[in-house]
């Protein structure tokens, strides 16, 4: 049989029962559409979260005091008997391959300017914070590179705090009160938006030593460092570990590399995407049962035709291919329609929720289409085999 004749014949079978074929393909289409849409959403979420995390750069390493991994909370949250200090920061800065180091103290307090007050997050950091965290200054400048222990009382405002305290008035050069102490505003930041629920704009940045005095503590909560782009973060992390261990005598800190975190995060998000895709796959399974049903009905109804074909000298294997072809064609058409549904759905979703753009992963799309054809093949095997094995005489009698 010529290949085009084969296609014409199978296609004819599908067209002869328009409504039935439409509904069968619709079943597969809904299944494939669900898989494509869901994996697109998963992929979109994946990218969204990774983008949130990498907005501070990818060559970051964070050091927290204490080895408190079992409790699942950061060491910075808790009191600690062996703290990280500003001096640790200074030592780390001298290590090779390290571009910048930031001491971090974080807290919460009231910020007063004139008659207004706002409670916001207070970050105690170094001048290097703007470089390490890739902050952009909207007006003025970031904290100056003062000696860490004797930094001047300067403050840089997050965009929301600036807006709340000063509105459209000039903020630069003004004096504000943070926890009873006076600070001079030397700059304000561009809006960074939210990261995982934390409003980065509702914050002020002051020198780390000042924050430690303000919060009445002697230790840092975190040290962030930026290493050179070419160097491996695990190698750098190892050097940091050695240097700190030499100073503290023990490994009483936790090092988290951005790379490792992204790896873990990526793993989790991939699992999520696959899990959600698998949920959609249930529909595909049901659609497969649908093809199986319809194909067995078709074989039943066309018993006479099969007898005729056999009488005209068509081989069993050809009958098998004909009916298998019909099943696969049904599934493939359904798959294509499903792609349309899924891609259209993702597009609509992106329109509705621009913050979380669905991302169509063509690998998933291609595998979904292949899966559809495979489902058709699988569902077609039983009915097609029954068709091929029909006895020609019996089959003809059915007419």
């Amino acid at each position, binding site marked *: 049989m010529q290949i085009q004749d084969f296609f014409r014949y199978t296609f004819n079978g599908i067209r002869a029962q328009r*409504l039935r074929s439409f509904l069968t393909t619709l079943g597969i289409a809904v299944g494939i559409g669900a898989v494509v849409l869901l994996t697109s959403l998963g992929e979109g979420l994946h990218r969204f979260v990774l983008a949130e995390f990498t907005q501070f750069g990818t060559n970051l390493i964070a050091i927290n005091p204490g080895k408190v991994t079992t409790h699942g909370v950061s060491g910075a949250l808790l009191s600690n008997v062996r703290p990280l200090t500003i001096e640790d920061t200074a030592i780390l800065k001298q290590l090779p391959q390290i571009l910048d180091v930031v001491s971090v103290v974080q807290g919460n*307090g009231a910020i007063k300017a004139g008659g207004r007050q706002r409670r916001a997050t207070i970050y105690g950091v170094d001048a290097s914070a703007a470089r390490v965290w890739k902050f952009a200054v909207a007006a003025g400048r970031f904290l100056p590179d003062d000696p860490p222990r004797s930094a001047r009382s300067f403050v840089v405002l997050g965009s929301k705090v600036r807006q709340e305290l000063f509105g459209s008035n000039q903020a630069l050069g003004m004096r504000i009160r943070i926890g009873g102490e006076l600070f001079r505003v030397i700059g304000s930041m561009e809006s960074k938006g939210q990261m995982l629920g934390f409003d980065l704009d509702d914050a002020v940045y002051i020198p780390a030593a000042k924050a430690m005095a303000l919060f009445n503590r*002697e230790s840092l909560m975190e040290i962030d460092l930026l290493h050179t782009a070419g160097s491996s973060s695990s190698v750098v992390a190892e050097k940091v570990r050695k240097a700190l261990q030499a100073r503290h005598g023990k490994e009483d800190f936790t090092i988290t590399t951005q790379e490792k975190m992204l790896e873990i995060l990526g793993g989790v998000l991939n699992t999520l995407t696959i899990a959600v895709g698998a949920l959609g796959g249930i529909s595909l399974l049901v659609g497969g049962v649908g093809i199986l049903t319809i194909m067995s009905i078709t074989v039943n109804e066309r018993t006479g035709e099969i007898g005729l074909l056999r009488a005209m000298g068509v081989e069993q294997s050809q009958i098998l291919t004909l009916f298998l072809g019909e099943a696969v064609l049904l599934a493939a058409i359904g798959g294509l329609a499903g792609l349309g549904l899924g891609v259209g759905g993702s597009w609509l979703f992106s329109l509705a929720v621009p913050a979380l753009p669905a991302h169509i992963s063509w690998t998933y799309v291609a595998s979904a289409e292949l899966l559809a054809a495979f489902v058709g093949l699988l569902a077609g095997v039983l009915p097609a085999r029954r068709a091929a094995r029909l006895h020609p005489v019996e089959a003809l009698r059915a007419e």
Partner: protein
Amino acid sequence: MQIRDILSFSLLAATANRGRTLLMLLAMAIAVSSVVVLISLGDSARHYVIDQFSTLGTNLLIVLPGRSETTGGPPPLLGATPRDLTLADAMALNRARTVRRITPIIAGSAPISVRSLEREMLVLGSTSELYEIRHLALSQGSFLPPGEPTRAEAVCVIGQKGKKELFGNQPAIGRWLRIGDRRFRVIGVLSSSGVSLGEDLGEVVIIPVAAAQALFNTSSLFRILVEATSPEGIEQTRKSILDTIRVRHEGEDDITVITQDAVLTTFDRIFKALTLSVAGIAAISLVVAGIMIMNVMLVAVSNRRAEIGLLKALGASRTQILGLFLTESTILSSIGAGIGLVLALLGMRLAAFLFPQFPLQLAPWSSAISLGVALITGVVFGVLPARRAADLEPAFALMRR
């Protein structure tokens, strides 16, 4: 026509073609069982988390230092504040009428050692009230003694797992251990209450709050736990806590009070939303199963034209034919849903057997859901075929053999 007759006639018609019927039931069962299983899993997870959270205490309020003005954002769980929450603040809260008991908490991490063995553990500085407020249980010894919270007695209560790691199978009561550079005598061992919301009480050492202040060299509290006298008193307590602290902090509102209720409600909402969306995704398969039922019913209608013509000739009205075919599709979807429900039940039983630590069970309203789903699917996807049947011209339907 009598209801019984409609049912038996349709049942007979629905099951006349065994292979086809089985496949349809299979499709429906897959769809229904996946929806029911996912709802049940979500529901079990919700119960688990809420139960866990409820064991933290009853009528509980948590006071933390710091306050953030960003609405809808998370409370300032991290970080320090210019003005500490002090032991004196905590004691002052005791005066309110609706407060049953309070306990201050300082949390820290420190190396704990017994001879050469050393472990990094969570150290909680608290008072004897922690025992009642957190519903703790001891396996041996006694809890921190009651008395002035400012007294730094060198005693500690240790978690089950920590005890095993430091003392092995030997008795721990009366032994000394070292936290940082200080020595403490073990007076009690907690019973293994397992993990409760990430806080592993197995690896914790509880010491008097004053001792923790000295150990960590801080006067600042990490949390204050407050237990109200009654659920109705919670709101009142919250207000009086805010008022008391405001007066003590020179008119500033610089604390955050979280009520257990609010957290429970949030968890409840999150888990419900999660369950619904996962079940919703699985419900797409119901649509597919419905389409399939519609398809097969359409085939049945065209195969049974003569029968439909005959029924009309015998005086069946359009409505009767419509009813017969709708009943048939609904019977099919119902049986399928029933099988799906049984599959889901078996699946959940199996899961409960495999993971005995989680309370896995079929969601209570599963049967109602599957029944509802079956009826809706049967009717919605049965309408088109049934209308086709009802609209057949009897003369035409009978004409072909």
